[in-house]
Each structure stands twice: as C-alpha cells, then as structure tokens.
C-alpha cells in the first residue's frame, strides 16, 4: 500500500526523529510513503494569519502535485501541515470563492487540482485505516510498567473538526494502549502548548508548557507521547527553562508516538532516532 507523503519543513530538520520513526513503523506495517516530488511549504504560521488565501494556495499546490502523480491520499506527520492541507482540501471542496482563488493561483503555476486528494494524518492512518488489530499484530516487545500520557496538541482537530474530537481526542490513546503501556488520563491532552508564539511571547508560553508538564508529572507519567514536531520541541526543549522560571524540577521525556510504537514493535533503535531528545528517553528506551 502506497501513499503520497508530504514531509513538511521540520521533518527534514528539527523533527528528523519523527520522520524516521514514522517511516520505520509504517514500513514494518507494510505501508510505503512516497515523498511528493518538489513539495513546498504548507503555508503555515506567519502566512496563514496574514494572507490566509495565499497560504491555502501553497497547500493546494502540494495537493495538486500529489493528484498529478496519481495519488488519492496524502499522509502528513506534522500537525501544522495537516491542519493547513486539510483546510485547503475542505475549502476547495466546500467554498466556491476559495476554490476559484486556489484554482487561479494554481493556474499561474500551470497546474490544476480536481479535489480528488484527501489529506490524512499519520495518526488517523494508523488507527482508523490500518486499524488496531494490525498494529497489535506488529507489537513484539510490549512495554511493561511504563506510564504514558498522550498529548495531541491543538492543531489535530482545529480549526476544522477532522478525524478525532477536538476537545477529547482518543486515537493516540488507542494506539499507545496497544504497546502495552499504561495510558493515563490526561485532561490537557488538547490544550495549546504555545508553540507558535514561543519566540514572541515566551513568558506566556512557559506557563502553558508548565501546566502540561505539571499534569503529566502529577499523574506520574514516565513519557509524554506527541504527534506534532512543534509540541515535541516545546515540551522537550523548554523543560529546563520552565524549571528555572517556576522553581520546578520536571524531567519527563517527550517522544513521538511513532517512536513509542516502534519500541514496542521491536524495531532497530537507530531507525527510531531515540537519542535526539533534550530530556533523554532513558528507561523506556532501554527495556
């Protein structure tokens, strides 16, 4: 089974570990992702709020490229890419004015989009398409005595409701439960981590991060599992600064859910790129 794959900018930089583990897990499940040739920026953060239409056109180009290459589904790992591409897809199908605009922009690039491509997040692909049975069958080294909180971040169900509930999503809970780990209740699973304003409003963001870390620690989590590069960076890299700011002493590894799955599936740790986190993955990796 082959899907078009849109890596997005972070997959080839800060979140190499996400991409590597995702590809490794999917490969083990018999799924091949094929990178869209000549893909471009999804049109995320700064552009999307200043010039929403232009940013949608950027997304639309990626969809058009996938469609031209004969794909019907584009898989993304990054939640921000997902949100942007999904927005373009949704607007293209339902809003004639936006469709006209995107079609016009694509035309200047000599391209067109027929609306035949559907965007899927890797979490959606794994849990709702490949299905829990298939994941469970691949688990060879179930995690024991590991407590995990799933953290979805804000973008998976927003702004448009997509494959999971925006407030109380459950798909990652389901995926993680299959690994044998104890998946803890996590009330802040879909709260914003502040990622997009980390550089401009750091104080506010540290408060948000702290609250998430607090609940994870309070519940006794060994690991926070995430599905978004920016969430991972924010929760992982800023733990020291949070500790300095609030006088706390959090030290919770933040792993991509694909890495956790990969461990349980007994995949080669080097393909899972487990050594890249600021807070070392420690115990979970060494089981």
């Amino acid at each position, binding site marked *: 089974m082959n899907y078009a794959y849109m890596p997005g900018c972070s997959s080839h930089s800060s979140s190499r570990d996400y991409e590597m583990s995702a590809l490794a897990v999917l490969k083990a499940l018999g799924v091949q992702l094929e990178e869209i040739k000549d893909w471009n920026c999804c049109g995320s953060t700064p552009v999307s709020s200043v010039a929403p239409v232009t940013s949608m056109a950027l997304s639309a180009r990626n969809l058009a490229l996938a469609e031209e290459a004969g794909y019907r589904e584009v898989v993304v790992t990054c939640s921000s890419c997902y949100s942007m591409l999904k927005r373009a897809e949704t607007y293209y199908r339902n809003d004639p004015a936006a469709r006209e605009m995107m079609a016009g922009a694509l035309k200047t690039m000599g391209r067109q989009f027929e609306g035949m491509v559907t965007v899927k997040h890797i979490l959606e692909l794994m849990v709702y398409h490949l299905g829990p049975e298939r994941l469970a069958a691949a688990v060879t080294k179930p995690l024991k005595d590991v407590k995990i909180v799933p953290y979805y971040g804000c973008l998976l169900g927003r702004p448009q409701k997509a494959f999971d509930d925006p*407030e109380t999503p459950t798909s990652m809970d389901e995926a993680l439960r299959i690994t044998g780990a104890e998946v803890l209740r996590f*009330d802040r699973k879909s709260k914003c981590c502040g990622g997009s304003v980390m550089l401009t409003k750091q104080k506010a963001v540290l408060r948000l991060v702290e609250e998430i870390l607090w609940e994870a620690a*309070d519940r006794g989590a060994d690991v926070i599992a995430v599905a978004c590069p920016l969430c991972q960076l924010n929760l992982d890299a800023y733990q020291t600064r949070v500790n300095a700011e609030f006088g706390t002493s959090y030290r919770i590894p933040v792993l991509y859910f694909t890495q956790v799955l990969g461990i349980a599936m007994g995949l080669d740790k080097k393909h899972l790129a487990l050594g890249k986190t600021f807070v070392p993955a420690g115990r979970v990796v060494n089981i």
Partner: protein
Amino acid sequence: MPDVRIGVYVCHCGSNIADKVDCAGVAEFAGGLPKVTIARDYQYMCADPGQDLIRKDIKDHKLNRVVVASCSPRMHEPTFRKTLESAGLNAYFFEMANIREHVSWVTEGREQATEKAKALVAAAVARVFYHEPLYERFADMNKRTLVVGGGIAGIEAALKIAASGNQVVIVEKEPSIGGNMAKLDKTFPTLDCSACILTPKMVAAAQDENITLYTYAEVEKVEGYVGNFQVTIRKKARSVDMDKCTGCGICYNKCPAKVPNEFDEGLGMRKAIYVPFPQAVPNKPVIDRQNCTYFQKGKCGVCSKVCPTGAVDYAQEDQLVTEDFGAIIVSTGFETLDPTLGPQWGYGRYDNVITALQFERLVNASGPTQGKVVLKDGTVPKRVAVLHCVGSRDLNFREYCSRFCCMSSLKLAHLAKEKTGGEVYSFYIDMRAFGKGYEEFYNRVMEEGIHFIRGKGTEVIQRAGELFVRTEDTLLGKYREVPVDLVVLNVATVPRADAEKVAQTFGIQRSPDGFFLEAHVKLEPLKTATDGVFIAGGCQGPKDIPDSVSQGAGAAAEALSLIEAGKVKISPVVASVDEARCGGCKACLALCPYGAVDFDDEKKVAVVNEAVCKGCGTCAASCASGAMGVRHFTDEQILAQIGEVLAV
C-alpha cells in the same frame, strides 16, 4: 358552464404594496385579461370599505369569481372567503395573489415588482376560472382535552380546563407529575419555596374530578383530526396496584436494591421500588424493573412480602388504551444540556463540578444532603463559582440564550452565600434581568456581597486538588484564574431527547434549535401546524415559571375556545375519486398517511373517507389515471396557474 365573470382587486395595503408595485397599472393589466369583468385597485381591501366594494361589485356586475391581489393567503384568505359568502357567492370562487410577502416586501425595483405582481395576478385569474363551488361541513367536537406532560404548564392548563367543567386527561411519563419545577428549591425573584407553591397545584390536579391522571404513561399514537383525535396511550406497568396501595411506604423502606436517584440528579440514592420524591402525586410507588432484584434475578420479593394490602403485582403488564379527545395540549418541557459535551467545563472530570439542578437538590431540605451544601468529601465549600451561559449563547453548543439562567444563577449565588457563608463568584457574559422584579432581585443579590465577574467561565481546571475557573474579566480587561472549591454550571436549556419523536407523533414542527415551533412567532405562540394541537411551556423554548404558567393557561383558553364551539369545521379541500375512470390499481392506498383511501372490492375502485382526508393531495399526484383528484388543487387549476404565471 355559465358565463365566467371575474372581479380583480389590487390592494395597496397602505404603502406596503403601493410603494413597490404600480397597483393601478396591475389593475389595468388585469382588466384586459380574459373573463375579467372588472378590475380595481384600492387602499385597503381587507378593511370594511374594501370588502363592501367586492360585495357591491358581485351584485352590480354579477361577478361569480373574485381575485384579490394583496397579502399572503395564509393571512386573509379566510377574510375574503367570508366576504364572498356574505354576498351570496360560494367562498371557494375566490383566489388570492400574494403581492405583498412575495412581491413588494422582497423586491428591490418597482418595475420588477410590478411585473411580478402582474404575473401572479394573471395566474390567479387563470386559476379562479377553474374553481368550483365547495361546501364546508361540520363534525361534532369531542369535549375532552389531552394534556401531555404534567409539569407546571400542563398542570395549569389542566386545572383551567377542568374548572370550566370539561374533562381533561394528563399523561405524564414519570411516576409523578410536577416536572422540572418540583426539583427546584427556591424560585426567583421572590425566593419562595418551589414545592410550597407547586404542591397545592399538584394535589388540586389529583383531586379534581374532571382531571384524570395517567402517570408513568406515554402517548404512542395520535390519529384523527381536530375535534376527533383518537389517542393511544401506553400505561407502563407500575407493578403496583394503584387501587390497593395506600402509599404507606413500607415497601421502599424495606427494598434492598439501591439506585442513583434521577430526581436528585444522581446525587442521592433511591430504592428499586420508589416514589420519586416525598410530595409525589400520586404518592404511590413504582418498581423500576431494570434495577429490581426480583425482575432481574427472579429472587427477593421483599416488597411483595411486606406490603400490608397486597398491592405489589409483579405480573402487571403495560396497558394500551385508546381514548378520544377534541383537543391536545403538548407541554412536555425541556432538559438541560449534557455538561460532559464540553470537557473544558470539568464536569465528570472533577468531583466538585456540578450542575445547577444538582445544586438545587443539594440546597433542598428533602434532597440527598438534607439541604446542606457540601463537597464530595463532606466539607462545606468556602468558595463557590456559579457559571452562567454554559453551552448557551455559544456557537459550539447552543446559539440561543436560555432565558432564565441569569436569574436562576443569581438565585443559586444567593443560596450558596446563605448556606455556606463563603465567597461566591458569579461568572456572566452580561446580566439579563428582564422580568417583573428581576432587576430588583439582581440589585439585592449584588448587595449580598457576591463577586460578579463579567466574563464567561470558559474552562475549569484542577491543579493539585484545587479547582480554578478561567475567564477573561472583560471589565478589568484581564485574564483571570479564580480558585474555588465548588463549581456550579448553569447549563443550557435544550429540547428533550425525544422531542423529534413527540413532534412527529403530534404533527408539530420544530424550529432549528429543536424546540417545538409555534404557528406564528408573535401572534400564535400556542398553536401548531396541526389544528387542535397546542403547545405550552418549556417544550416551545426556554421559559421561567411565570411564562410557563401563562402559556399553560393560554393553551387552556385555546382548547376551550375550540371545545366550547361544539362543532369543528371540516374543510372541503379533500381528495375525491372519479369512479368511472379509476382502474383499481391500488397505488394510492398505501400512500395516504391517514388511511383515508379505501378500496371498494365490489366496484373495484378506490374510495376516499372525506372526514379523515386532510387534502394534502399526495394520492392525486400519484394517480396515473387521473381518477384521483384533490378539490381546490386540481390539475387543471394548477396547470392553468403555471401556464399563466409564465405568460407575463
């Protein structure tokens, strides 16, 4: 066919039509249409002089058809039909062209409006040419009224009708009447005790010889029409013989099975055999078979053993009874929004987040804590937050305002202050104190030292065992997190879960918010699309007690005005079969939602029961032989209309 002579009258409706439509021009145009004898325009056709004009022309010009171009036929068709009748002409030789609602009020340009008005008039003229005289008939009116739902609105309606000497049946699906009001502790703005003012009404309803109570019963099916409804009611098995039971209470004292008490909003426990609350009417128990050990496991039977009168009857079965009624009042009430739908409110996540109704039960002396406001751990909260508009005025949940929650929140804040003596915070978007004595009540509560925070309580979080309410305080222009011990969510008022089913059973339409739709938003608040079916109370939209009581009384007046007339008019607009043409294919039989089409096995043709037919015309539209027609909406009439509406 005798010479057809049509009179056309174009109404100015003051300036309502004349501003946009050249009425004189339309009249002149109409004068040139075939068979039109006279065409005039006039200021107000519906006023007496306008009607006199028609009457005079009918006499002087021997008119035998009349077209009035004015407002919607839904407004004045009955008026002008009466005009024709009073001039000795059959009322159905009349047709209306709607040039106000469908033309002058919706069209920008005068030229387009005038042209559209001409087209509608031409179509009406073409149609009226084919009109035939029809005769209304009358059927006897059954004088009994059915009230569905025994909350305060239904009780009020029943009492009023009973007082006039007419029979009423109240069907209530719970074991006791009383509805939502019975759960309340105090009522705003006077703070009198809810049970104290409701219980006498409940008892009066039970004792009134003109009122029959069917509690623990539901309406299954409604057939017939205004004046002659046949209603099938399911009387659910109570497992207790109502005649033998004295209401002594030994059974539920001894019953070993405990279940969360719905009446206490799940806060306290009740038994499997129970009366929902101490003042219940009737004050006789019912067995909840789902939770009864005897019914689930076949063993126990304690209640039966201890009952001194042998009233417990495990073999009792649901009973279906069919009764006749002339009018129906639907007062099925409302529910509150499921607060778990918004996980951000913390309900179900955190122990000390409760709903307004749960708080009512807490403060109520007969509630699970005997009136003490306590936290889950039994301690008295020092800080209480009351959140307004939880799910109301929120596009993610309910767009509408739930109308009474500002006042009920004020009342809850007052009670919290009174019962706990602690700090009370009220989170509101803005304060809607619209009713008599309400603003005064607001002022009074403010003076009691409640903290009013003008900001929607958007999120309730718990950290280290402490609850925080998050809000944007719009007066301070600041984000705030307020630490509290108890959060009371005043959740949105919503239609009952079974509203769709009830609406379909009674032929009521619903508005987009899901509540029952009245016939006219301002002028017919109690009528529905189905003649003889009225609505009252919270089933029509969020309402406080005074409003519900007024509507109950109003619905009683609506029902009585029908009943007291004694007769009900049967419209002659019904289907009819041309037996000479009907081939007996039977395609129409199953189509009729009322079973008004039967088959005559001897003649091998379809026959219509005119008393049952409502004239929708579905059968006519499906009769390929053309034998089935519907009077006043014949193919000829409609096709003529279609042809002419395009001719201009």
